[in-house]
């Protein structure tokens, strides 16, 4: 199943112009799934991205607007679109001129996929206990 998920994520990279990388991590930054566009290596440490989002999302959830769902950060050359999917974090790394709205929609579509991963992890963890 893991290979199928990686293939699915790699196909996603072709759907949005400028999308360079899709990563699923847990809240500690451990990478579960990774897909990079060919010949692209964005200058971000994937585990650091997950930790950054976890920290920022916890802060954002204290704004009085209930739970944080996603954070978009735009830099000079790149943008990060990150989603809070239960216990997992989905991160898209794209060029700064990529369509942010499309990336946000893509993240919403992927929620059901990451839910499958989160459930499988939870079942494995419960079984191990």
């Amino acid at each position, binding site marked *: 199943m893991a290979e199928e998920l990686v293939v699915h994520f790699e196909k996603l990279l072709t759907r949005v112009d400028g999308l360079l990388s899709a990563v699923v991590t847990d809240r500690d930054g451990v990478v579960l799934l990774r897909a990079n566009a060919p010949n692209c290596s964005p*200058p*971000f440490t994937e585990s*650091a*991205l997950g930790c*950054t989002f976890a*920290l*920022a999302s916890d*802060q*954002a*959830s*204290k*704004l*009085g*607007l*209930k*739970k*944080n*769902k*996603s*954070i*978009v*950060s*735009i*830099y*000079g*050359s*790149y943008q*990060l679109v990150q989603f809070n999917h239960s216990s997992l974090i989905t991160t898209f790394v794209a060029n*700064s001129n990529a369509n942010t*709205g499309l990336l*946000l929609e893509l993240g919403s579509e992927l929620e059901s996929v990451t839910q499958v991963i989160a459930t499988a992890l939870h079942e494995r963890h419960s079984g191990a206990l």
Partner: protein
Amino acid sequence: MLKPKLISQVLQQATTGGVKATILLNPEGSLLAFAAQSDRDARIYGAIASNIWTIYSKHCKPEVGPLSFLMLECEEGKVAISIVSTMILCLVARDDVELGILKAKSEALTRHLEEPLSRVAGY
């Protein structure tokens, strides 16, 4: 020098159509001016916004470029955070406000405030 009352009036112009608060703060989280329902709300939004900006600023490297904009989507609201000269501008809106209009308002305020704030940035 700056006229704080005028800045608040400029920020007030953005608090329409579902935008609950517009806040100008320094990178340390101290408020310069705000237009919000209460000063307590403005202080909370400002402190958390500056904290989140600092967290994401750590990824700035020469090949990445400077952080220019942050958008946060929560279950009951949206937040846009951007930089104006050396200050941070934060807009907090209800959930039914689209991210595009929030970004447009943020960019309009940034264009308007950039020049006057740059003049006092050196002090």
